[in-house]
């Protein structure tokens, strides 16, 4: 077995027994990136030198017997999470030269845990998109079929994990941006409860929806990474002061008596592919065999999640992205001699088309005379969507659904039609609107050999229930063991 193929848990065992060193492991991952990333396009920046330096430090610590689960483990990070001294671009021209002077809290936590950061991963510009085609830097190809998208916006994170170019990764999820690419690339991804993971140092897209989370090769690794980055942070005023359970300790608990909600509205969702539907149906049967009990639940406002999201997210984005003005950091059009012209020109040349589209939608929805009709209305329907979940969770512990209505589509297939692209987010958006945790776990393959993901959603701060169910499911199936032939 090649070292880059290891899971975090396996690599940790070998490091601990001193059968391998972090320098060997990190070297193997860096070689893998050099060998195949030209074909995949997952990385924006490879931080080879600093990674090797961090690996050496990890080896020194291990030699002294100082080892935690992530010590010496090579991971990679979506390029909208600030890394001190490593370029952080948000896949946008407007930040192409931005070098953060500080680490995001999740990065400090990874470093304290001994992890080695090998680089920064591609994404849709400012995390706006579902295919990574909106990256201002490069295209990312799905490792299972290079003519297809990896999903988005954390497409680089999912592709890098699937193609063994890191042992695990961080992404961010505003409307499905961790779960949907995880589903399309056949890896495990978690969007934690809102407030579980600090957003300090995450470049904001929609502040009331954004959450950082892990993408990993299996559920065990996902639990390890989630545990490492979760927890209260005084630097993020929306971070929740609440203890983080040891997620790994829940994995081996059984499924007996766990009540699984099946939303009746999801079957009739527009454009649901029969292969996805049948993979999810099989997953349900597996869960029942494991002792789970399925109950029908109703989420009557499901159809409104898309319109609510596409008012709230662009509105918050239009406000958050006002900070990119060519003054404090990033790109500036230096040819303009008047301040207002400089703002306009800098922003127009710096942002790509999808970002501009969303800024305009958001600005319009918040502008005088339209606020009540759009933003307020959407925020009220958001309340109803949250109430749907509260009612459903009175009779179930978790909700099972597809992640995406179809397997990964072809590059270019939907890029000219933003509304069709938005509609593919139907199953994932609600979790962000309601602030609940959601997870994607591999649950099958299409006849064309493309991965299909199963979504598990839980009550606020019930990540351990998701991990338990996902681990039981994973142990009963072998979808996570298949690798793309790259």
């Amino acid at each position, binding site marked *: 077995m090649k070292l880059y193929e290891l899971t975090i848990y396996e690599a940790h065992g070998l490091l601990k027994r001193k059968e391998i060193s972090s320098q060997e492991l990190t070297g193997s991952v860096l070689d893998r990136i050099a060998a195949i990333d030209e074909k995949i396009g997952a990385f924006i920046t490879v931080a080879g030198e600093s990674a090797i330096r961090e690996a050496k430090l990890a080896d020194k610590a291990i030699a002294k017997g100082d080892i935690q689960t992530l010590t010496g483990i090579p991971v990679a990070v979506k390029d909208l999470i600030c890394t001190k001294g490593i370029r952080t671009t948000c896949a946008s021209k407007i930040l192409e030269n931005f070098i953060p002077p500080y680490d995001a809290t999740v990065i400090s936590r990874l470093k304290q845990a001994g992890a080695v950061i090998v680089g920064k991963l591609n994404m849709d510009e400012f995390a706006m998109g579902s295919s990574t085609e909106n990256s201002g830097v490069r295209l990312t190809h799905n490792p299972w079929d290079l003519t297809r998208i990896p999903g988005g916006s954390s497409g680089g994170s999912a592709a890098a994990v699937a193609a063994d170019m890191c042992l695990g990764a961080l992404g961010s999820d505003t409307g499905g941006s961790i779960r949907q690419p995880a589903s399309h690339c056949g890896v495990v991804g978690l969007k934690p409860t809102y407030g579980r993971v600090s957003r300090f140092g995450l470049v904001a897209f929609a502040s009331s929806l954004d959450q950082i989370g892990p993408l990993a090769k299996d559920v065990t690794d996902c639990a390890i990474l989630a545990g490492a980055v979760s927890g209260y942070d005084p630097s993020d005023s929306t971070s929740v002061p609440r203890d983080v359970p040891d997620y790994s300790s829940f994995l081996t608990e059984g499924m007996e008596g766990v009540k699984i909600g099946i939303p009746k509205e999801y079957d009739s969702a527009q454009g649901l592919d029969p292969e996805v539907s049948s993979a999810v149906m099989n997953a349900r049967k597996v869960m029942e065999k494991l002792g789970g009990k399925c109950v029908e639940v109703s989420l009557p406002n499901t159809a409104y999640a898309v319109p609510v999201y596409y008012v709230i997210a662009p509105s918050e984005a239009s406000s958050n992205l006002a900070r990119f003005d060519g003054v404090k950091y990033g790109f500036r059009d230096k040819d303009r001699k008047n301040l207002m012209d400089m703002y306009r020109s800098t922003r127009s040349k710096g942002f790509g088309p999808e970002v501009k589209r969303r800024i305009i939608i958001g600005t319009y929805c918040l502008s005088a005379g339209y606020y009540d009709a759009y933003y307020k209305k959407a925020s*009220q329907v958001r309340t109803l969507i949250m109430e749907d979940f509260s009612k459903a969770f009175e009779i179930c512990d978790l909700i099972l659904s597809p992640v995406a209505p179809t397997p990964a589509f072809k590059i270019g297939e939907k890029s000219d039609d933003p509304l069709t692209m938005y509609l593919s987010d139907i199953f994932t958006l609600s979790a962000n609107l309601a*602030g609940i945790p959601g997870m994607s776990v591999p649950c099958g393959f299409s006849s064309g050999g493309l991965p299909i993901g199963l979504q598990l959603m839980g009550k606020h701060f019930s990540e351990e229930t998701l991990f338990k169910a996902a681990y039981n499911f994973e142990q009963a199936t072998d979808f996570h063991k298949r690798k793309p032939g790259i």
Partner: protein
Amino acid sequence: MKITRDDIIHTANLARLEMDEDSIRKFAVQIDDILRYVETLNNVNTEGVQPTSHAIFLTNAFRNDVEKQDLGRDVLLENAPEKENGNFMVPKVVG
């Protein structure tokens, strides 16, 4: 049309964006489509429903009023496109 060409130009100006004629035309059609779709929300009765802006119940987050070390002016200016004497430089504002 829900949204006109003039709406796009006006909104772009509020958002400090410039657009060529092509993008204005394209955006007018696409954003019109999206806003029409958003208007399906009018089918929902929201009378008396409180709006939600934050999904997790939290009251104000306060910190103790103690001095903290910040990054310092020089570090914060490192990424500035133009700077002079410890200040951000911008094009002339007043004529």
